């Protein structure tokens, strides 16, 4: 039995989980750092407890403090969301040992799948094809660099360096030529160490022209392990997904069945419980290779929810309470697309941006879902991940889903902070996207020198006129807050600055 859930996360995924708790009739507890005191997720929780400390390490990554709050707040379950502590087996173990239900798989499953190297080995042993590559076990910097250099000649170029404990593109570097290897390896190790406390990396052949396809898994304690079909997440910039869809447009029943079977086998091999994702590279030949398993809820889970009708987070709560999952036989219906709205400058290598959300007006109407942790009036700060929202559309067919996504993005207005809104909108018109022939290198291939919007001159005329009229008419849109948005750090317009400084 579960009655009170502590959500050990922030932002949009905390909102997603807190709302699911509310719908399930469970009491929810949020934890928040001081700089999140006014965030939406704090409002949505039944109770919210302040995390002492200034850095992420002291707050959202602080296991002992979180465990203490869980105990004093009477939580009998803990949902880690994604990122932060969600794939830390030691934390999962500490939570369980405190008598609190961990909403996720066993520490052992996290360990075996969370470490990318041991996962590769586990999968290879289970007969699931893995990408040609090599694991580097040593933690020592100099030894590791030597081992990486030696392994690179066997793996071949182009290759990919990946953090062993990584995720979300952090600690990941593509290397095209041997002469770039060492700098890339140092930088990847440094980023991995900073992000995950583990600097180990491994090497993989970079399979160009492939699709990133992943299978959603659900497993309960009543002997049922199922897959919910695939998602395609090939469209990535800086190795981070920005455009995800389900189903994969080039998927066949045969490949889906084989991939689903491999994913279920992978989950069962580690006695998996809860929701998880098995990621594959799907080559143009139809061959697929195991990439990694994410032992947690994923950012892009909504597209699967839209086409299967399964509420994955709600099922996580059920499974953790020891109940059987509620979904029956599954039928995929229609097509769903998710885009990630980032506070970032798409015209300048997707550099994160900050600023106030002076206007934040999401689109409305049929077939649209918005998962976000922000509202108009909020401030985008450099403290956390720059993802502002996920916009998800569903329609009966892929063509209609793309039409709906275009319409939705045209309606979406965000002012005060630079976002990738226009980039996402123009993505919807790219021939590879329209035809479903996306692969993981698409963005780099299409815009090797960076992206710039297709902007008719007269639109800038219109914008200038709008600004001039607004200035003349005194339309100074004000937010209600007593803290002046311009008070703390001055007006921020990275868009303009960046545009001029770093062409």
């Amino acid at each position, binding site marked *: 039995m579960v009655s009170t859930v502590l959500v050990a996360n922030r932002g949009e995924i905390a909102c997603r989980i807190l709302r699911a708790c509310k719908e399930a009739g469970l009491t929810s507890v949020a934890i928040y750092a001081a700089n999140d005191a006014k965030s939406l997720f704090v409002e949505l929780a039944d109770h919210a407890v302040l995390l002492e400390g200034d850095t992420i390490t002291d707050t959202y990554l602080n296991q002992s403090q979180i465990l203490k709050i869980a105990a004093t707040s009477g939580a009998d379950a803990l949902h880690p969301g994604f990122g932060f502590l969600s794939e830390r087996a030691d934390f999962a173990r500490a939570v369980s040992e405190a008598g609190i239900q961990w909403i996720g798989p066993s520490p052992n499953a996290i360990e075996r799948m969370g470490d990318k190297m041991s996962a590769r080995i586990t999968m290879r042993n289970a007969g699931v094809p893995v990408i040609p590559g090599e694991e580097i076990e040593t933690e020592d910097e100099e030894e590791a660099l030597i081992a990486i250099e030696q392994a690179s000649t066997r793996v071949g170029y182009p290759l990919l360096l990946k953090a062993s404990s990584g995720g979300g593109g952090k600690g990941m570097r593509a290397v095209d030529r041997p002469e770039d290897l060492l700098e890339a390896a140092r930088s990847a190790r440094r980023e991995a160490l900073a*992000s995950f406390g583990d600097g180990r990396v491994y090497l993989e052949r970079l399979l160009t022209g492939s699709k990133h396809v992943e299978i959603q898994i659900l497993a309960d304690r009543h002997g049922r392990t199922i897959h919910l079909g695939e998602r395609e997440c090939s469209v990535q910039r800086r190795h981070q997904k920005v455009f995800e869809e389900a189903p994969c447009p080039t998927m066949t029943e045969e490949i889906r069945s084989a991939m689903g079977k491999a994913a279920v086998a992978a989950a069962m091999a580690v006695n998996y419980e809860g929701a998880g994702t098995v990621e594959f590279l799907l080559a143009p030949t139809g061959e697929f290779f195991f990439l990694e398993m994410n032992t947690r809820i994923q950012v892009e889970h909504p597209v699967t929810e839209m086409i299967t009708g399964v509420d994955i987070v709600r099922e996580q709560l059920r499974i953790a309470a020891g109940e059987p999952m509620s979904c029956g036989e599954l039928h995929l219906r229609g097509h769903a697309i998710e885009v990630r709205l980032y506070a970032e400058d798409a015209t300048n290598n997707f550099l994160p941006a900050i600023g106030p959300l002076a206007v934040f007006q999401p689109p409305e109407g049929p077939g649209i879902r918005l998962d976000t942790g922000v509202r108009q009036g909020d401030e985008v700060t450099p403290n956390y991940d720059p993802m502002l929202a996920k916009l998800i559309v569903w329609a009966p067919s892929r063509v209609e889903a793309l039409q709906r996504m275009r319409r939705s993005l045209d309606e979406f207005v965000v002012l005060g902070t630079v976002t990738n809104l226009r980039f996402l909108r123009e993505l919807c018109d790219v021939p590879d996207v329209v035809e479903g022939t996306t692969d993981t290198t698409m963005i780099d291939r299409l815009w090797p020198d960076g992206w710039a919007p297709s902007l008719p001159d007269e639109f*800038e005329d219109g914008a200038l*006129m709008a600004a*001039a009229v607004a200035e003349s008419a005194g339309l100074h849109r004000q937010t209600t807050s007593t803290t002046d948005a311009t008070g703390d750090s001055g007006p921020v317009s990275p868009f303009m*600055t960046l545009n001029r400084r770093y062409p």
Partner: protein
Amino acid sequence: MHHQFRTAEGPVEVTLAKQGEVWHLGEHQASVGRDGRLMIQLANGTSGHATVAKVGDVWWVHFEGHTFCLERIEPGASQSEDGGGLTAPMPGKVLDVLVEVGQLVEAGQTLMVLEAMKMEHRILASTSGQVTGIHFSAGEQVQQGSVLLEMAESED
């Protein structure tokens, strides 16, 4: 009504006329709607709604699916010097400084590595030239807009 805005291509002057509730800019027309919205009719027949908000001196405008940042230049304000300094695009920490004062660098060369939002960001030379000043060293925190390095452009 006369206003000056800074755009990516440089300053632009805009002079409006008003007749009744309608604003005119050459053949373009505009009228004010509710809650920061404007109706814009361009000379070429395009018409659409704009949403605006002012943050500091910058007007943010959403028009025809595009978002614009237009910094208003206060009448009489002097233009700030634009050359030389390389500023921090956002608050963060300096991870590494890859050049020294006096060093000659190529356009596109990495000068400094910052960390912000758990990601690495490289500060690149926008032109080739000589490094004339370095204001931060590895480990230091920088504010958005801080001048990180100074460069003298080489005369090509």
